[in-house]
């Protein structure tokens, strides 16, 4: 738990150092252009969050567990899971980018 709080605190310091800290709703201006604008961002983020939680729990790991620890040791199911979530990320991002244009 402390680890998680420290992560947020570390990111706070980083955003101050970068001069990018500000109180806002969605993660960056590009989010409004590509995914959802204004208050619409909140339900999309909540639904997307459910998919992240459901998917990482089912796959047994996320970008750290499968991506770093698993791929670092070339564990087959981790390489497969990492290829899948990066692959889906690439495809959906191209779709969103095309739709926003």
């Amino acid at each position, binding site marked *: 738990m402390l680890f998680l709080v420290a992560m947020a605190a570390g990111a*706070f*310091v980083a955003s101050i150092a970068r001069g990018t800290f500000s109180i806002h709703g969605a993660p960056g201006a590009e989010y409004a252009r590509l995914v959802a604008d204004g208050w619409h961002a909140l339900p999309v*983020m909540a639904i997307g969050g459910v998919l992240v939680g459901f*998917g990482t729990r089912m796959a047994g790991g996320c970008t750290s567990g499968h991506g770093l620890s698993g791929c670092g040791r070339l564990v087959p199911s981790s390489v497969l899971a990492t290829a*899948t979530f990066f692959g889906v990320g690439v495809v*959906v991002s191209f779709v969103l980018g095309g739709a926003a244009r």
Partner: protein
Amino acid sequence: MLVVQIATGAALGFSLGFIGFGDYGELHRMFTFADLRLFLTFAGAVVVTGLGLRFLVRSPLPSAPVHKSAVIGGACFGLGWVLTGACPGIALVQLGEGTLGAAFTLAGMLAGIRAYDAVNQRWLRWGDPDASCGN
């Protein structure tokens, strides 16, 4: 161990935030190959983690058989990642950067974890997720 937790958590949060993993534009440029910086960062981290686990921790290689849950779960996660701009740790990074909407992402993640546990226990019976994560 408290000091280790705080120091490693802060270092990870600072690095991810400083690189720009919390910003949706950066993530989009990674996924569309417009900017390979985050991809290369990730690849570098995989190598460092692999070497660390191999030579410092000497953790035994997990031998869990490949299960379809890796692909189905990975696909759900990939879609959610693009919709939220956050993989689990990044939601905390975004909160630290002042992205208050990430609280919705975090709440969704916790609900998603509980939902999978319920679905798994009731219908799928694919085993205990805790037993497969990184072991």
